[in-house]
């Protein structure tokens, strides 16, 4: 087999010309989807973690219940529940003026992913907040720092050092799980892959998808390492 034949098997120039641009689009959609829901999920997750650690029994229970539900059921089920389940209540959503949201696959997907990753991130944040030594809270109190200053300047930076590793894992899992979005008509990386395959019936399309996912994950992994080193520079 010549080199050209081999190349045609894994990276056929014709195929690339036809579907390459679509793959770029898919890549961007996947990136946007993951970045958006991961960030929103981080905010929600932090609130859930704080609720879980609060002294308010009701907040604790609510947050624990939320985490239990979203970690205990498959993301796919959650997405379908949102898009097809809630999305079928057209009349209701029209009444409350939210139909534009629930009829849209993109919004539903972002919401489902956000709600799901928030539960995992809440547990990560909770653990990392508990990992900060009690003496740090005491020192902050003894200096009469406000609660907000204590949280943002003293506790959060230290807990992030602990959280960053597990958060990175969650992000990577999410990048891969985001392929599920293609099941509700989103043309993310997996969406365009399926489309391209259904037209070309060439298996190398899936190879491209795999390599591209691998590439994103690798970029994320390296950036995280960099951030981790920066956050922990005082530990040397």
């Amino acid at each position: 087999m010549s080199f050209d034949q081999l190349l045609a098997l894994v990276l056929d120039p014709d195929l690339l010309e036809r579907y390459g641009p679509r793959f770029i689009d898919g890549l961007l959609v996947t990136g946007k989807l993951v970045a958006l829901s991961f960030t929103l999920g981080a905010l929600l997750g932090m609130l859930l973690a704080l609720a879980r650690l609060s002294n308010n029994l009701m907040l604790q229970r609510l947050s624990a219940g939320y985490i239990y539900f979203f970690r205990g059921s498959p993301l796919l089920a959650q997405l379908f529940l949102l898009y097809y389940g809630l999305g079928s209540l057209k009349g209701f959503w029209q009444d409350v003026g939210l139909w534009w949201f629930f009829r849209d696959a993109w919004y539903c997907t972002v919401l489902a992913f956000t709600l799901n990753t928030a539960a995992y991130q809440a547990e990560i944040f909770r653990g990392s907040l508990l990992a900060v030594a009690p003496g740090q809270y005491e020192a902050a109190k003894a200096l009469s720092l406000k609660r907000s200053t204590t949280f943002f300047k003293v506790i959060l930076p230290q807990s992030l050092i602990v959280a960053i590793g597990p958060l990175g894992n969650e992000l990577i899992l999410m990048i891969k799980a985001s392929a599920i979005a293609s099941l509700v008509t989103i043309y993310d990386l997996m969406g365009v892959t399926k489309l391209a395959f259904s037209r070309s019936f060439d298996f190398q399309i899936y190879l491209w998808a795999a390599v591209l996912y691998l590439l994103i994950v690798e970029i994320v992994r390296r950036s995280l390492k960099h951030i981790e080193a920066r956050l922990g520079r005082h530990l040397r």
Partner: protein
Amino acid sequence: MTASLSLATPTPAPQADPRKVVVTIEGLNKHYGAFHVLRDINLNVREGERIVLCGPSGSGKSTLIRCINRLEIAEQGNIRVNDTDLSLTTRQAAEVRSEIGMVFQHFNLFPHMSVLDNCTLAPMSVRGLSRKEAEERARFYLNKVGIESQAGKYPSQLSGGQQQRVAIARALCMKPKIMLFDEPTSALDPEMVAEVLDVLVKLADTGMTMLCVTHEMGFARQVAERVLFLDGGQIIEDASPEAFFNNPQSARAKGFLAQILH
């Protein structure tokens, strides 16, 4: 038992002392669950007074001084600091607390901040100082504790003794009226104890009101005006260092001294 009970009420400070009372503790009782940590504590601390608290492990020394800045809250009794009742609103309590500096056994420096930032955080965010003012003040106190040259380092790059001196400087940067020390030297390697005690002696010379939990009896003799001996959550003895060391009244204090001076 009756004998020690009669000793439990400390003899009041001599009426002649003209100094203002800055901390008043009346009838303080605290429990941890069923465990009675502080029993009926009464104590007056006067401005500029230097008090050493000692006593066996678990006698409630830490709990007592932590009540003074409300790190712990007693369920019964009164604490007044500069005539402000600490059981009042948390806002007032926070204001009072900012007049009280505390140094912990394990330093509790903020590990992710440089020495300088450790010292400027509270003055800037609580006192509203500008960064420049706060840094000036921080350098002044870091210089006092002999550590100004390390201002840019992180706590983990310093020795234990250096870290504790930074912690003292950090507390002083709030210009507190009262300083509390909870065994400031007991987590240090022996060769670093002296450098921290030196700083404490210098601080005492400035007229700072100090309450210090310590088992450094040499330090107590040199610096303290009063030694309080706690046992089982009670103040068993309240005496001058000479009286306490040379002529302890209770059997428990005698036993404690015999153990510690050995």
